[in-house]
C-alpha cells in the first residue's frame, strides 16, 4: 500500500527529502533480522559472545521504519508478523530505555497471538516490577493489551498494587488498562473496587479521572452506589477538569433516574428541587471552560427542564458565542441550536450574538447559527434573515445547504403568511448549482409547502415546472411530473402547464418521456376542454422510439376515447389514472409467482387484499406526515386512504359510508408482552370500527380464531354490529381483527373494555408444525376510550385571520372557563389542544416562557365535514390559576355548542 505513495515521491523534485524515501517492506523486514542475530551486522547491533550490547539507536531506527510501514497501511502476513515479533522480543536484552519504549509500541501494534504472548510475558512481568516507573507503567499497558483471561489472574496482584502506586503514571496506566479489561473480563476487574476507590481520592488529577471512570463502570448497574459516589464527590474536591466533566455526566444521569412526576408533585418546580441541580449550576462558575460547557450542556439536556433552570446555562453559552476560539463558539451554538428545538423562547436572548455568527469564518458555526435563528425567529424577522442567508448560501457545502433548506421549510409551515418570500428563496436556490440530495431537499420542501399552504400552490407548481425545464436528475423529473399530474388539473388554469410537460416528451430521456405521457393523460382525463389538444399531443407520442412511451400513449388514447372507440365511463378512467394499485404489492408478487401458465388468465381480483406483513399502523408510526415526494402525490391522507381501502374490502363494513377519520394506533398492551395489540379507531358518520392489530410474540404458539370481546356497559350509545375474527395468527406476523359498532349520528363518547379471545395451539419450533388440538384462552387488554378528538380532523389554515373573518360571527359561541391550578400556561394550552384534537395554527401552540397570557389559534374539521376555528385566550394569575376564554366559529351553530360542551366536560 505504501508503494504507490513512495513512487510518487520519486517523481517529485528531489528537494523534499524524506527519511523513508523509497522504503520497501521486504528490505525493512530483512533489516529486522539483525535483532535476531546481531552478529550478522556488527555495525548495527554488535554482540560480544555473552554480554549483550545492542546499538539502541540503530534498532530504534529499524522499529520506526516498521511502524512507519504499518502506519502507512502496509500489512504483514502472519509469517512476517511472527518473525518480526520474535526478532523484537530479543531486544528485551537491551537496557536502552528509548529502545524498550519502541519495543512496547511494536508489540502492541503486532497484537500477537496467545502462544506468542507467552514468550514476552516473563519479560513484561519483570518490567512490571522494575524500579523504573516508565517500565512499570508501559509494561502494564502492553501486557493488559495483549493478555487473555488466564494470564490476567496471574498478574492481578501486581495490577492491584499498581492502581495505588504512588507514581501517578503507573496508577493511570493500571486504571486505564482496567477500563479496557472490564469489557472482556468484568469479573476480575470488579474485584479491584477497593483499590480503585482509594485511587479516586488520589491527589494526582488524572489518576482521579481514570479511577472515577473505572469505578463508575464497575458500579454502573447499581443505581444506589452510583448515587452515593456522586453525592460524596460533589461535596468533595475534584481536581482534574476531566474528572469534573465525568462527575457532571454521572450527576445528570442520576437526576434523570428520578421520575419527573416526583419532582413536580413536591410543589412548584424550583431549580433546587432537582437532585444535583445546584451542583450542576455551581459548575457553571468553574474556572475550566471544559467544565463550564459540560455543565451547561448537561442542564440543557435535563428531561423536562424548566426555563428557570435553563437561564443560567443559556447565559454562559451566550458568553461563549462571542469567544475568540472557534471550538467554543461551535460548542455553544450547537447546544443552543438543540435547545431551540424544545425551548425556542429561551434562546431568543442570544439572537443578536447569533446574527453576528452568520458571517463567521467557520461555516459549520454559521450554519448552526442560521438554523437556530430560523427556529427562534418571529414573523417580522423572516425577511431580514432571508436576505442574510441568500448571501451566505453560495459559499457553503451541500450538506449545510440541506440543513438550511429544512429549517426554512419548517419556518414556512410556522408562518404561512411568509410563504411568498420563502418560496421565492427556494426557487432561487433551486436554479443554482447543486447535487442531487440538495435539489431533492428543495423539491421536497416545495412539495410540502404546496400541500400544506393552499395559497402557495400555483406559484410552487410554476417553480417546479421551471425546474424540470432544466433538470439533470431523471428521478426528480419523473416525481415532479407525477405530482404535476395530480395537482395541475385542479388549478385555475391547467393549460399553462401543458407546454412544460410536452417539452419533456420532446427533450428528455425515455423514462421522463413516459411519465410525461402519463401526466398529459391525467390532464386530459380531468379537464374536458383540454382533451382535444391532449389527443393531438398523445398521438405524436405514438411514434416515439421507446416501447414504454408508445405503449402508454396508445393505452391512454384508448382509455380517453381519443381514437373514436367508445370509451369507458369517466369514473373508471379516473380510477385507473389516479387510483393506486389496490392490492398489496407483496401479495401480487407471490400470486404471480404461484401462477402456472394455463388456459385461464391471471386474475388480479384473486389476489388476497388483506395486508399480511406489517400492519398499516406500524408503517404510519415513524412520522405522521409523510414527507417528500414519495408520499406527496396522495397527500397527507395516504394512510387514511390505505385504511379506507382495507375497510371497504371487507363486505360487512362497505355500507358504512365514507370514512371520516382514523385515529393513530393506541397500544392496548405493554411493550414486551406475549401478545402485542394496538387499536385504530375508524370513525364513520353512524358507525365506529375498531381495528385491532395483533402480534403474537411467542414462537411456540399458533393462535386461531382470534377475536376481541368488547364490553360496552360504559358506552351505552354504542351497540355492537359485527365482530370479524382473525382465522389464524402465527408467530411474529401481525394480523387484524375488527369489531364494528352502530352509534347515533354525530358525536358519542364511551369507554370500552377489551378481552382478547383465541384458541392457542402448541407449535413445535423445530418443524414449525402446530398440534391438532388447541385450548381456548383469554387475554385481558387495556380499556379504550372514544373521545372528542376522535371526531375532529386536524386541518390547518394558512391565514387564520382571513379564515376567521370570512367565517363570520353568525355561529360564534364565546364563553369563559376556569381551568384551576396548572403547572404552567404551556401545560394548560397543551391540555386543551389535546382535548380538542385540533391543528394549532401559526405556531401559536408554543407559549413563551414566563408569559402571563397567551392566545392560541386552532383549526379543524368536525364530523359531518364542518369547518371549525377556535381562538383560545389564556391568562394565569399568581397562584397558578388559569382562566381561559374560548371563542368558536364554525359553519354550524350546533357544532360550536358541541365544542363548548367538550371543553366544559373535559
Amino acid at each position, binding site marked *: 500500500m505504501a508503494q504507490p505513495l513512495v513512487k510518487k515521491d520519486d517523481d517529485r523534485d528531489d528537494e523534499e527529502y524524506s527519511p523513508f524515501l523509497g522504503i520497501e517492506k521486504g528490505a525493512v523486514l530483512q533489516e529486522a533480522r539483525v535483532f535476531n542475530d546481531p552478529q550478522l551486522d556488527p555495525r548495527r547491533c554488535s554482540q560480544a559472545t555473552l554480554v549483550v550490547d545492542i546499538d539502541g539507536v540503530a534498532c530504534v531506527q529499524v522499529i520506526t521504519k516498521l511502524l512507519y510501514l504499518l502506519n502507512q497501511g502496509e500489512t504483514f502476513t502472519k509469517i512476517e508478523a511472527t518473525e518480526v515479533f520474535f526478532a523484537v522480543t530479543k531486544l528485551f536484552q537491551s537496557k536502552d530505555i528509548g529502545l524498550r519504549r519502541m519495543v512496547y509500541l511494536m508489540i502492541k501494534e503486532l497484537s500477537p497471538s496467545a502462544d506468542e504472548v507467552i514468550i514476552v510475558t516473563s519479560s513484561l512481568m519483570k518490567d512490571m516490577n522494575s524500579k523504573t516507573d516508565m517500565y512499570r507503567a508501559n509494561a502494564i499497558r502492553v501486557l493488559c493489551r495483549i493478555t487473555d483471561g488466564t494470564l490476567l489472574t496471574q498478574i492481578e496482584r501486581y495490577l492491584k498494587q499498581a492502581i495505588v502506586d504512588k507514581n501517578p503514571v503507573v496508577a493511570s496506566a493500571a486504571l486505564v488498562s482496567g477500563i479496557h479489561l472490564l469489557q472482556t473480563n468484568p469479573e476480575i476487574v470488579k474485584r479491584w473496587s477497593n483499590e480503585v476507590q482509594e485511587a479516586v481520592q488520589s491527589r494526582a488529577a488524572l489518576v482521579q479521572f481514570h479511577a472515577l471512570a473505572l469505578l463508575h463502570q464497575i458500579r454502573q448497574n447499581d443505581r444506589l452506589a452510583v448515587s452515593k459516589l456522586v453525592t460524596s464527590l460533589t461535596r468533595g474536591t475534584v481536581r482534574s477538569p*476531566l474528572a469534573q*466533566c465525568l462527575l457532571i455526566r454521572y450527576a445528570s444521569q442520576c437526576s434523570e433516574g428520578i421520575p419527573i412526576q416526583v419532582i413536580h408533585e413536591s410543589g412548584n418546580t424550583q431549580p433546587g428541587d432537582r437532585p444535583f441541580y445546584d451542583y450542576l449550576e455551581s459548575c457553571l462558575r468553574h474556572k475550566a471552560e471544559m467544565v463550564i460547557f459540560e455543565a451547561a450542556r448537561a442542564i440543557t439536556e435535563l428531561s423536562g427542564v424548566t426555563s428557570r433552570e435553563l437561564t443560567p446555562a443559556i447565559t454562559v453559552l451566550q458568553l461563549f458565542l462571542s469567544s475568540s476560539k472557534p471550538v467554543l463558539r461551535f460548542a455553544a451554538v450547537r447546544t443552543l441550536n438543540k435547545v431551540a428545538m424544545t425551548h425556542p423562547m429561551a434562546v431568543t436572548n442570544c439572537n443578536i450574538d447569533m446574527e453576528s455568527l452568520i458571517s463567521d469564518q467557520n461555516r459549520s458555526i454559521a450554519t448552526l447559527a442560521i438554523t437556530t435563528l430560523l427556529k427562534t425567529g418571529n414573523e417580522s424577522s423572516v425577511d431580514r434573515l432571508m436576505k442574510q442567508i441568500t448571501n451566505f448560501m453560495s459559499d457553503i457545502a451541500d450538506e449545510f445547504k440541506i440543513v438550511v433548506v429544512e429549517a426554512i421549510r419548517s419556518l414556512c409551515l410556522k408562518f404561512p403568511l411568509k410563504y411568498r418570500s420563502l418560496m421565492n428563496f427556494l426557487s432561487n436556490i433551486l436554479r443554482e448549482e447543486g447535487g442531487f440530495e440538495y435539489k431533492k431537499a428543495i423539491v421536497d420542501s416545495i412539495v410540502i409547502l404546496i400541500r400544506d399552504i393552499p395559497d402557495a400552490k400555483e406559484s410552487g407548481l410554476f417553480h417546479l415546472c421551471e425546474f424540470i425545464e432544466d433538470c439533470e436528475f431523471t428521478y426528480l423529473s419523473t416525481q415532479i411530473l407525477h405530482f404535476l399530474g395530480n395537482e395541475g388539473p385542479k388549478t385555475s388554469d391547467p393549460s399553462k402547464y401543458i407546454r412544460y410537460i410536452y417539452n419533456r416528451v420532446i427533450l428528455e430521456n425515455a423514462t421522463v418521456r413516459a411519465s410525461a405521457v402519463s401526466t398529459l393523460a391525467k390532464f386530459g382525463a380531468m379537464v374536458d376542454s383540454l382533451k382535444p389538444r391532449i389527443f393531438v399531443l398523445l398521438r405524436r407520442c405514438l411514434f416515439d422510439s421507446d416501447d414504454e412511451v408508445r405503449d402508454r400513449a396508445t393505452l391512454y388514447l384508448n382509455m380517453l376515447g381519443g381514437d373514436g372507440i367508445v370509451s369507458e365511463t369517466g369514473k373508471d378512467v379516473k380510477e385507473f389514472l389516479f387510483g393506486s394499485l389496490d392490492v398489496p404489492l407483496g401479495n401480487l408478487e407471490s400470486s404471480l409467482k404461484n401462477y402456472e401458465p394455463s388456459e385461464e388468465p391471471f386474475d388480479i381480483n384473486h389476489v388476497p387484499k388483506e395486508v399480511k406483513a406489517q400492519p398499516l399502523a406500524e408503517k404510519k408510526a415513524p412520522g405522521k406526515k409523510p414527507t417528500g415526494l414519495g408520499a406527496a402525490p396522495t397527500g397527507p391522507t395516504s394512510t387514511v386512504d390505505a385504511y379506507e381501502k382495507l375497510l371497504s374490502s371487507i363486505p360487512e363494513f362497505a355500507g358504512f359510508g365514507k370514512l371520516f377519520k382514523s385515529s393513530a394506533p393506541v397500544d392496548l398492551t405493554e411493550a414486551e408482552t406475549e401478545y402485542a395489540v394496538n387499536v385504530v379507531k375508524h370513525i364513520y358518520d353512524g358507525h365506529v370500527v375498531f381495528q385491532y392489530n395483533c402480534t403474537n410474540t411467542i414462537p411456540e404458539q399458533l393462535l386461531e380464531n382470534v377475536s376481541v370481546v368488547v364490553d360496552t356497559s360504559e358506552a351505552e350509545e354504542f351497540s355492537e354490529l359485527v365482530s370479524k375474527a382473525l382465522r389464524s395468527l402465527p408467530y411474529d406476523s401481525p394480523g387484524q381483527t375488527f369489531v364494528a359498532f352502530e352509534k347515533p349520528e354525530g358525536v358519542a363518547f364511551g369507554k370500552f373494555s377489551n378481552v382478547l379471545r383465541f384458541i392457542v395451539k402448541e407449535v413445535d419450533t423445530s418443524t414449525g408444525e402446530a398440534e391438532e388440538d388447541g385450548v381456548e384462552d383469554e387475554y385481558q387488554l387495556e380499556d379504550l376510550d372514544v373521545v372528542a378528538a376522535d371526531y375532529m380532523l386536524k386541518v390547518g389554515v394558512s391565514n387564520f385571520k382571513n379564515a376567521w373573518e370570512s367565517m363570520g360571527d353568525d355561529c360564534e359561541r364565546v364563553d369563559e372557563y376556569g381551568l384551576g391550578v396548572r403547572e404552567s400556561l404551556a401545560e394548560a394550552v397543551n391540555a386543551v389542544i389535546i382535548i380538542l384534537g385540533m391543528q394549532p395554527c401559526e405556531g401559536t401552540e408554543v407559549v413563551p416562557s414566563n408569559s402571563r397570557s397567551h392566545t392560541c389559534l386552532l383549526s379543524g374539521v368536525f364530523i359531518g365535514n364542518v369547518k371549525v376555528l377556535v381562538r383560545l385566550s389564556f391568562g394565569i394569575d399568581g397562584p397558578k390559576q388559569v382562566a381561559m376564554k374560548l371563542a368558536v366559529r364554525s359553519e354550524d351553530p350546533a357544532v360550536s355548542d358541541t365544542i363548548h360542551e367538550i371543553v366544559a366536560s373535559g
Partner: protein
Amino acid sequence: MASFAAYQNNCPFVKNVLLLDSEGKRVAVKYYSDEWPTLSTKLAFEKSVFSKTQKTNARNEAEITMFDNNIIIYKFIQDLHFFVTGGDDENELILAAVLQGFFDAVSLLLRGNVEKQEALENLDLILLCLDEIVDGGMVLETEASVVAGKVASHNADSGAALSEQTISQALATAREHLTRSLLK
C-alpha cells in the same frame, strides 16, 4: 478493538488522532474506534477530512467541523495538519484539549521546528507521543509538557535527538519557540 460503544457514552472517547501532511498524506495516524474497519475506509475518511478542512484557516486557533456524526477538531502548522475526531455527543472542549496537548507536545519534542520533514525524522517521538496521550480511546494525559517529558525521558539515555542539551533545557527552548510562533 471492539465493544467500545459500551463505555463511550459515559467516558470521553477519542475515535482517532491524525497527523497528515499538506497533501493529505499520512505522517502518523492512530485509530481507536472500529468505525473504520479497513484501510480503504480509513483512507477515505482521511481524504474527506482533509478536503473539507483544507481551505480553512486553522493556523492560529484550533478549528472545528462536523460531518457523518463526527466532530473533528483540527489545527495546522507549516505543512502539518493535526486532527482529533470524536463522536457527535462528545464535549468539543475535551477533544480540543487532546488536540492542543498533542500539538504542543509535538512542538516541544521537535523543538519548535514543526514541519513534515522534521516530524518524519523524529517519527519515533511522534508515535510515542500519540501513545502517551490516548490509550485505546481513553484520554491518558493532555498536559503537553508532561507528555513531552515522558517521551523525552525515554530518549535521554539513547542520547540521540536531544544529546547536546539536557531535557529541561530542551523543553525551555522549545517553549520559547512555541511562544514566539504564537506571538507572530
